[in-house]
């Protein structure tokens, strides 16, 4: 009898567990497939907050992205950037105009722009967003605080952004002010007041407020979120259906993102058709359609399949005398590396080669490539795998093997370097292996090292570290202020010695001449002069080699499975919608054109 009772109890327990698990699943499994667009590769882990004025929200579907394209599903920016052609397209705002001396920009908001509660978006909202952002030091505040002095309403729908000025009364950096237009989400003044009030004006608690009552202006809002899934639902009262904006609502009623354990899980879901839009690197992606015959496609039909906007780069640590004092060693390693192998292996050819797009400070887009004189630096560029050239360089510089152990010495000591990137970042690890192999061929000992991410990030952002000799990080991809921002990251002096440096120049390279040119560029508007300045910087960069890029890489991957939805943006469709995952910047335009298959 007792046994029976125990058995019954156990059965009851199991059943109740089952119902609990099923209950949690039920809500999201009811989403109609034909009205839902599924994503992968953006949200990892549980959403922490919906507070657009906060930090650490871990809310990648609504609060993410930068000037190259803010994710405007729920919170909107003034303008949208299109990295395919450099256009800045109005969203909350209609137009902007710089003053003659580049000290201020006046912006006109769209008449139709409204918050979800029906109140209009006004200049006071923008000013309040800015004031509080600076006050609490959120992403907007800390990113643009050094460049924007104030935002002042000049009417209900008009305001001016005043640039910060240097001692001579010139704007510090007008390019960064333009970035603000496409990179900063705007919040409602009334809601910000509530937020500030309930946190007693304390910056830390404002940043950490969960913001569940947030007011939004975008086409979607939160519907459901837990540790398994994030679902957004369309706001059918969205102001953007006004003729002055999109003229219609986005097609999918729901936006859903299952939280996958890792990349392979997301990849499997894409293959199974459970994911429509996948922002993940998938090696040999062409096999998905060539071999497996799946209805999956990318922005371009042929390699590199996507739009490469950034260049993961190996930085030399200038805190190490052997690297700082030997430009020949820096250049020798850089020209000996077999980039074709890196691109074929690590990127599975989803990157143009350095023979196709010769190395410079620019990403491979036409706009940036036109910004330097290719012929002037042709002799300085290298495509890699030049072992003989590297050996000659080292021999010439007197870095030779004196004790016959097969490795070269500097000041009597064996040159021994490590090549470092975070553990588990497969494509970077493979690149570091190729760099190490190059060292082997030219008699410079390079060993690979893959620390865990939490260790890596504290070391490489420390300006005084001498633990990593060659280490990887990516400079900025694309935005209105690029290539300037990226060039500043490669050669600028601003970031040298900065503690907890996430901003740039991680190798601590100092070059006064380059720095002076970098300071000059934001204030230069003449095209020819700009090209001249960028060419000079490219010359310095390719001669001094403070770092070397290993590949070109998309900043967002864009693979779509057309089992349910179709008419995603493609390179040859003439719409010029960027492959920005249907969510970022002008990439969101894709959501308005989607069609169901069949």
């Amino acid at each position, binding site marked *: 009898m007792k046994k029976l009772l125990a058995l019954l109890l156990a059965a009851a327990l199991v059943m109740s567990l089952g119902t609990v698990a099923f209950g949690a699943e039920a809500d999201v499994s009811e989403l109609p497939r034909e009205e839902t667009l599924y994503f992968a590769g953006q949200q990892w882990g549980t959403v922490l907050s919906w507070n657009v004025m906060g930090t650490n929200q871990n809310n990648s579907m609504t609060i993410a992205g930068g000037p190259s394209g803010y994710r405007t599903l729920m919170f909107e920016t003034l303008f949208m950037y299109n990295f395919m052609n450099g256009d800045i397209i109005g969203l909350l705002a209609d137009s902007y105009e710089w003053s003659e001396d580049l000290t201020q920009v006046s912006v006109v908001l769209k008449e139709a722009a409204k918050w979800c509660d029906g109140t209009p978006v006004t200049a006071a909202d923008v000013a309040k967003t800015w004031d509080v952002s600076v006050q609490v030091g959120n992403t907007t505040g800390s990113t643009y605080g050094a460049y924007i002095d104030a935002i002042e309403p000049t009417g209900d729908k008009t305001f001016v952004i005043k640039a910060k000025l240097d001692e001579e009364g010139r704007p510090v950096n007008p390019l960064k002010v333009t970035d603000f237009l496409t990179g900063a989400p705007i919040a409602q003044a009334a809601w910000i007041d509530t937020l500030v009030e309930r946190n007693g004006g304390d910056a830390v608690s404002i940043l950490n407020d969960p913001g569940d009552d947030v007011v939004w202006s975008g086409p979607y809002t939160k519907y459901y979120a837990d540790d398994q899934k994030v679902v957004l639902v369309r706001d059918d009262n969205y102001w953007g259906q006004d003729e002055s904006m999109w003229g219609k609502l986005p097609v999918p009623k729901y936006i859903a993102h299952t939280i996958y354990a890792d990349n392979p899980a997301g990849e499997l879901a894409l293959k199974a058709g459970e994911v429509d839009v996948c922002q993940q690197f998938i*090696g040999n992606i062409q096999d998905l359609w060539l071999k497996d015959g799946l209805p999956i496609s990318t922005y371009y039909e042929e390699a590199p399949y996507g739009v490469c906007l950034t260049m993961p780069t190996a930085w030399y640590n200038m805190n190490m005398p052997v690297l700082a004092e030997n430009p020949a060693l820096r250049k020798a390693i850089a020209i000996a590396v077999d980039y074709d192998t890196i691109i074929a292996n690590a990127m*599975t050819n989803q990157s143009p080669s350095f023979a196709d797009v010769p190395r410079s400070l620019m990403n491979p887009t036409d706009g940036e490539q036109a910004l330097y004189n290719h012929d002037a630096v042709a002799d300085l560029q290298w495509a890699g795998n030049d072992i003989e050239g590297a050996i000659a360089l080292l021999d010439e510089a007197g870095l030779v093997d004196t004790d016959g152990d097969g490795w070269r010495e500097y000041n009597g000591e064996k040159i021994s370097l490590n090549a470092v990137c975070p553990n588990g970042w497969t494509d970077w690890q493979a690149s570091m292996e190729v760099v190490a192999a190059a060292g082997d061929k030219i008699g410079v000992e390079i060993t690979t090292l893959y620390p865990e991410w939490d260790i890596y990030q504290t070391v490489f952002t420390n300006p005084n570290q001498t633990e990593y000799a060659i280490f990887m990080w990516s400079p900025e991809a694309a935005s209105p202020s690029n290539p300037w921002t990226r060039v500043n990251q490669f050669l600028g002096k601003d970031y040298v010695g900065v503690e907890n440096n996430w901003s740039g120049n991680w190798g601590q390279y100092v070059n006064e001449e380059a720095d002076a040119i970098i300071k000059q560029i934001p204030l230069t508007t003449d095209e020819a002069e700009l090209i001249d300045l960028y060419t000079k910087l490219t010359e310095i960069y390719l001669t001094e080699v403070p770092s070397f890029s290993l590949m070109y890489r998309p900043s967002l991957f864009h693979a779509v499975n057309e089992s349910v939805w179709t008419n995603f943006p493609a390179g040859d469709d003439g719409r010029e919608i960027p492959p920005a995952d249907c969510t970022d910047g002008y990439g969101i335009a894709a959501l308005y054109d989607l069609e169901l298959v069949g």
Partner: protein
Amino acid sequence: MKNTLRQVFHSSKFLVGFILFVLILLTIWIYPFLNPGNPLEMIGVGTFAKPGTYVSVYDALNTGTETLRLPDADDKRVDQLLSDADRVSMLEWFDIMEIDVSDLDATDTEALLDLWFEHYDQSIKPKGMTQAKRNFYKRLDNSVRQIRSADTLKIMHPEEGELVERGSINKTDYVNVGDVANVKLLPLGTDNFGRDVLKEMVSATGTSIVIGLIAGIVATLIGLTLGLLAGYVGGWVDDIIMFITNIFTVIPGFVLLILISYSIGQEQRGASVVAIVIGLTSWTWTTRSVRSQVISLRNRDHVNLSKLSGHSLVRIVATDILPYIASYVVMAFILQVSSGILAEAQLSLLGLGPKTTVTPTLGLMMNWAMLYSAHTNGSWWAYFPVILTITLISFSLNLMNTGLDQVFNPTLRD
């Protein structure tokens, strides 16, 4: 001794295991002579070239040809460029474009292609057709165009900015593979770095066996010493040793192994360090069994006689006890080697193995194959032979162990 060896080799299980193991060792020794060079050299640009013989296309063009008129050559060529499924897809296209195909025989390649070239245009975008499908038809179109291409291909050579004809290739031209200057046999293809998998695997097997041996020696030495001491000395020494041993037995060895490997950090993790760490975490069972065997031995008459004769502890243990448990220790050692190899593979699979690029190990090969999704993209050659090798090594060692057990264990003896 001679008698014991004869007995041991008489056991068929031991013999099979032994021969297998010797064959593996011989391969490790001989193969590098047949295929010399750095096993970590990245010969392939690109990931996972499949197993097979690779013939240099460039050199083949420069090799003298023979003309062979093979009756089925054209059919084979067409089959490769246009499969039956492709023919069905073409019919679907005609259907979508509302073209009448009622009197078309889909197996009639010429008629099918005529109709295809008449109606297909890459720029047409039928309503509702997905991008993936449109791309598929583009590829199909490019493929079938080759069927209609001329019987002769020209080889052009750039000279001073102009193309000069240097030769031509006919559909009936064949070269003898033996005449081509560069032919590379890759029996197991290449891995994610473009390395020759077979060459790398042979080298890795050697490293893994060395790791197993070091781990086995370390574990057996510690286990044996502690077991002998605890069993023979007894008393509080026994209590302390068993206390420590029990603690280590309770903590799962593999968890300990992971924690130690992680805290050592990758910079220090050479193959031998990993081997020692494995050894340091897997000695407990040897200690326990050696101890129980020694306890049963220590009150035997010959041991008591030695004691009465005033022999030292070391001498008694070495001459009166060790020989009686030697067979057991050898068997335990063999198992430790086998589990050491497995432990390295498991650790490396978790990314906690020896640091890469310096020496290949079987575990690292599997780790990279997994990181590059070899198991989902069908590149079986990158990991399956490795698994098979690990299995074979462990199988041969375990077989030897079972054979020895049958010889030495009185309860199992036939």
